[in-house]
């Protein structure tokens, strides 16, 4: 099958500003293929170097609280129930009942049909957002109308943020325009009746993209199409988030900011389980795009078990001794 090069793409404003008004499959492709390459060895060496930073005392205390503030506390299981979601929300609001100075997490992340329960459990003014995965998560294998309905449904139910997946099959077969148009359409489906938009996170599923060059192209594509965040993974595919992939996506976001002055968020998701690992991500963010990105509006961890490890570390810093898994709640 050949790809029709002259097909006009959805008129997303960022892409038009950067590539020009005659936005087509071809002009998008030329732009993405003109991006500088990524040297895998060098990228991984840089990530490993950032991973050797030694974060101690006051810096560690700040880091632990910051990690909590940046967590999208997640449950994405077929077996999820309203009760499970309610318990997750309770944990998001009060992560450590033994220490009420513990900050709240950024958001809870659930499947679309669980959004009403999450919204209800959080109540008004909790400061915790509800994020819903949509667009036939995690595979994305559904028709566009189904993906859009999935999205609208979650937004209507009160989701503040939508985590969509890109069509990796289309991307890998070179149909950049199709991936682009779908993101633009989903973004439009995030529009609420009052004209505001739910925040759109675009999941690239980097574990399926195979090369760092692809990750860079997909990141640019997602931003050009209007994504507010670029997110590594669904958590359902191995490898999920890795430090080199996250570093690369942060470099894209930094370059976008240099170019346009606009700030895009990054969300590594899946596989980040320990405070030690999460701190490496904070270091990578701070030394790549700057400390201002360590803000829930610009950086998130998609994680479930990470929170409890951070709470244990936090208790250790407060009390001077390690407690154990029975001193943090399971959710």
């Amino acid at each position, binding site marked *: 099958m050949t790809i029709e090069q002259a097909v006009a793409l959805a008129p997303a404003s960022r892409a038009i500003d950067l590539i020009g008004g005659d936005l087509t499959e071809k002009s998008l492709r030329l732009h993405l293929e003109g991006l*500088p*390459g*990524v*040297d895998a*060895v*060098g*990228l991984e*060496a*840089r990530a490993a170097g950032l991973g*050797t*930073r*030694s*974060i*101690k*005392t*006051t*810096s*560690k*205390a*700040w*880091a632990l*609280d*910051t990690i909590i503030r940046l967590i999208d506390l997640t449950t994405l299981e077929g077996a999820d129930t309203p009760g499970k979601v309610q318990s997750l929300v309770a944990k998001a609001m009060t992560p450590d009942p033994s*220490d009420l*100075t513990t900050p709240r997490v950024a958001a809870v992340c659930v499947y679309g049909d669980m959004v009403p329960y999450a919204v209800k459990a959080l109540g008004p003014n909790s400061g915790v957002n509800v994020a819903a995965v949509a667009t036939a998560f995690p595979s994305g294998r559904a028709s566009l109308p189904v993906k859009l309905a999935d999205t609208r449904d979650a937004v209507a139910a009160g989701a503040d943020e939508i985590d969509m997946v890109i069509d990796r099959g289309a991307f890998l077969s070179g149909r950049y325009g199709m991936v682009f148009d779908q993101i633009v359409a989903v973004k439009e489906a995030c529009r609420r009746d009052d004209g505001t938009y739910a925040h759109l996170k675009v999941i690239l599923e980097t574990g399926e993209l195979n090369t760092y060059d692809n990750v860079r192209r997909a990141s640019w594509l997602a931003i050009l199409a209007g994504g507010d965040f670029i997110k590594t993974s669904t958590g359902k595919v191995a490898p999920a988030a890795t430090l080199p992939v996250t570093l*690369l996506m942060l*470099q894209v976001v930094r370059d976008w900011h240099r170019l346009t002055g606009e700030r895009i968020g990054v969300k590594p998701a899946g596989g980040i389980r320990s405070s030690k690992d999460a701190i490496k991500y*904070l270091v990578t963010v*701070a*030394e790549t795009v700057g*400390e201002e990105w*360590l803000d829930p509006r610009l950086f998130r961890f998609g994680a479930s078990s990470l929170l409890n490890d951070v709470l244990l570390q*936090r208790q250790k*810093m*407060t009390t001077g001794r390690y407690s154990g898994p029975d001193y943090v709640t399971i959710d």
Partner: protein
Amino acid sequence: MTMEASNTRWLDYAPAPESTSILHLKKSYGLFIDGDFVAGSGRSFTTISPADEHSIAEIASADAGDVDRAVAAARKAYNSTWSKLGGADRGKYLYRIARLVQERARELAVAESLDNGKPIKESRDVDVPLVAAWFFYYAGWADKLEHAGLGPNPRALGVAAQVIPWNFPLLMLAWKIAPALAAGNTVVIKPAETTPLSALIFAEILQQADLPNGVVNIITGAGETGSLLVNHPDVNKVAFTGSTAVGRAIAKSTAGTGKKLTLELGGKAANIVFDDAPIDQAIEGIVNGIFFNQGHVCCAGSRLLVQENIETEVVDRLKERLVTLRMGDPLDKNTDIGAINSRAQLDRIRALSDIGEEEGATRWSAPCEIPAKGFWFAPTIFTGVETSHRIAREEIFGPVLSVLTFRTPAEAIAKANNTPYGLSAGIWSDKGSKVLAVADKLRAGVIWANTFNKFDPSSPFGGYKESGYGREGGRHGLAAYLTNAVLQSGANK
């Protein structure tokens, strides 16, 4: 939990100093001759920490009599013990040394950073692991010399006189001692006067390893001691790493004496960045090329040759990156840039940088807080550098990068080769065919593609022209310590 970080930047990271409690230093160190520490007859000197100028230990200085004794000990050990041992037994000692270096790695790393000023993350993650790797590698060759492709029946030379520099004190010691012992020679080695500490701890390791007395002798002192050593009539081999001026003097004085000579001298390496380079990795490579070890690297990529259409972008990104480098206490695990090794070296870096400005190049230094004590120089970039400028021609041996531009690959090659040196070069491009075509035309001993300052014991290292002659590392490195060694390659042309 208290939150103190509110008005300071988190990026300033709380101090994370490596503990020095692992070090058990003596107040003074003698010379290591014939298996024992003995007093030196020269005027002793103090070795200081370049980070805060505090005294670390009193170090003996070897005079002519001491040098005689050290060479005699090496000769005796060669005749009576070492030349009689089989290769497998020599290898056994080398393996033992390698393992002891690994066991005492943290101690060696702390000593190295303390005495040299280099960041602990480099001594811990680069220097000391490579030291162990070098001994492991040459241990393996000790009983296989006949199969090294160096001709039939290769034989040891005898006593090797070795003089090493201060930039990688322990690593240069390993580069010298490991192949010498594997090939069956005995050694008298002199570390640099500003960085003797790790060599003296290494002497303790030799005792621990039960290496026969006199096989390795370590004598300390300044240039005069080194001169006495390399000119001693009873040495068969001279190996020197250091400045081109001293190397030239050694070449003169050893000429016609029958001593086999290898010299590893200065460099002014070109790091060539094409416009199709993987840009983020190239920036890292430029940083690693010139700011690794404060630029105290003979193969440092001190001349950045960047394709003119991406010069602004590369320089802007480079500056942004340099702002995140952390300069300070070498023993802090988060330090990226340590101290300049000595006041003399700092003066030289300052003088050449001033000349750079006078000649019309534009200077930019990373905004670093310079500690009150010690020797420090902020990472510095010169743009608008012409090939005729002294900062583009002379080795600065410090954290100073000269940026030049080129338009075509042919121009890049011409400019890269237009230097009296020829130790190393780097090429950055995503296009493999271009990398190979350019590498083929560069006259430098080591050429890195899409990386820089990577070392491996199996890879030969050495220079063209004023960067010296002979090769260290790999099979080639053995040839420098063997007679009858015929190496079928272009390395010694």
